[in-house]
């Protein structure tokens, strides 16, 4: 079951509106994600609407990730074009490796490709040789 944030009633998973009070259950509060590079020192903040894909742009196919590490030393650090994504499901944020060549790690633990894991604010996520500290701000 999922709990309605407005009235606390239990609803079936994937319900769109609360049966008790009519509150939208998939409506997402604005969430900011702050990424701090521990290797390069840069900081970036962006809204997490649905998902954020981290990787490198591919001019050949026109693919552009939400966060492009091409000019941030991404090639040297072995960051794949589609390396990692963050996404929201209800109130939870997940991190998922997208089958990258050099793998992704969360707090030094390897992520299985295409197996999302919950992410907490302050977690350390490694993409190849790039280490990011990720903060979530509601």
């Amino acid at each position, binding site marked *: 079951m999922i709990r309605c944030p407005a009235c606390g009633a239990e*609803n079936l998973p*994937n319900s769109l509106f609360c049966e008790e009070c*009519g509150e939208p259950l*998939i*409506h997402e509060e604005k969430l900011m994600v702050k990424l701090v590079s521990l290797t390069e020192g840069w900081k970036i903040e962006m809204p997490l609407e649905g998902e954020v894909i981290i990787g490198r742009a591919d001019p050949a196919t026109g693919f552009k990730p939400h966060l492009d590490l091409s000019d941030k030393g991404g090639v040297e650090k072995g960051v794949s074009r*589609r390396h990692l994504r963050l996404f929201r499901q209800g109130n939870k944020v997940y991190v998922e490796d997208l089958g990258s060549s050099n793998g992704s790690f969360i707090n030094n633990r390897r992520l299985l490709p295409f197996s999302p894991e919950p992410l907490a604010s302050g977690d350390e996520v490694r993409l190849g040789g790039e280490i990011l500290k990720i903060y979530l701000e509601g």
Partner: protein
Amino acid sequence: MGEEFRPDYYQLLEVSPFASQEEIESAYRRLVKEYHPDVLRAFKTAFLFRQLQEAYEVLRDPERRRRYDEWLRAKGLYPEKAFWANVLLSQRALRPLPEPQAWYVLFTIHAEKDHAIPPKPLNLCLVIDTSTSMKGPKLESALKASELVLRNLKEEDALALVTFNDRATVILPLARRHDPRKASSLLRKVKAEGGTEMSYGISSGLAELLKAGNLWESINYMLLLTDGETYGDEEECVRLAREAGAKGISIAAVGLGTDWNEELMEAIAQASGGVSLYIPHHKELPKTFQERVGALMGAVSAFKGKLELGEGINLKGLFRLDPQVSRVAMEGGTFFLGPFSGSIRLLAELVIPPLPAGHHPALRWEFGDLKGELAARGEVYLTIAEGVEGERIPKEILAAAGQVAIFKLREKAWKEIRGGERGKASQRLLFLAKQLEKAGEKDLALLAKEEAKFLPATGDLSAEGRKRLYYGTRLLALKPPEEG
């Protein structure tokens, strides 16, 4: 032969079986953008992408498409070129869960653009309350509205007029081309006196409509007008309405003022595939009658629908959204939708039991005329797959489910009031007020708050508040909730 097909290729491409090759191409190009691994990721993408490819590979090739259509036809799944229902799913795939989960299917039933079915003539009966309370301007307006309807009918349309109080009187027997002068003089003689026994009016109106003989060849409709509560024959009214619906006769149940029973009028409408309407002031009657009858002209048939659920799947509720939100009354999986010429949206709220990964037949649907000649049928498959996350809910589904959510709050409040649960009902109205406010319906929200305040003491709503909330909450043009 030996080709393997799935029955839902058109649905996967979100087109009708009558789509041109160009429409199929452009639907594919649109969907491919949504499905493509650059846009959506993870296992689901590949899974759904494969399905889309499979459908497209068959439908893009006119020869394979022809074979596929033959295959559908052999299974009774190819429709006559008349109607189609677009099917939209809240999520294309669900994760396997150890507990039941919610899933929504939105049907949009519409006439095909260039269908070759001519509109049918009207077979119409006006049933007018002439109890004492109708005396004066109310009755005058009702008779004026009736005369206007009569004048605007086409030559091939048939009309009857019945009045009722403690009994029913046929003023104009069913006929085509009434002499307007003669009809006017008959209408002028109508007086208002006596009580209200609505079932007599409905019953007599039905008898007139049935005189038409072959009901399949016409659009059959009763316009029922009352301004008061009927005495003790509520169940009979609904029973007659159900009988009417089964014969292809729909009832527009119109309530004038605030002293009638909205739940009864709605039950009559639901049972016959009609609508119920609230007219605050008698001056609006001519316009309302004209609009109702106008909406019928151009209709090609009365409609019915049928839903069959896959194993273990439950239907929590079925709602129509056009012309207003209402619950669809179902009997044995069948329901009446009445005549329409534009389109009708239906939202099915489903409960999916724990299921293993794979494709599951979730729903068989059928919409068509009562005679069963013009039917569109299809099957909806549910995909259960691991790793399904973050899929965007189509905004059409959010808008429909939002309207239904408000409708259900109102419905719950009424039930609680009826059951004497004053506190609960009052809280429910406050919830309703909050959602109405969000929807930009300030006046209705304010009204709900006011009523919530007095409800604990009085145990009921004000007469006007009751009607305004009941009907106001069904006609909202809600925007889907903002994203992000």
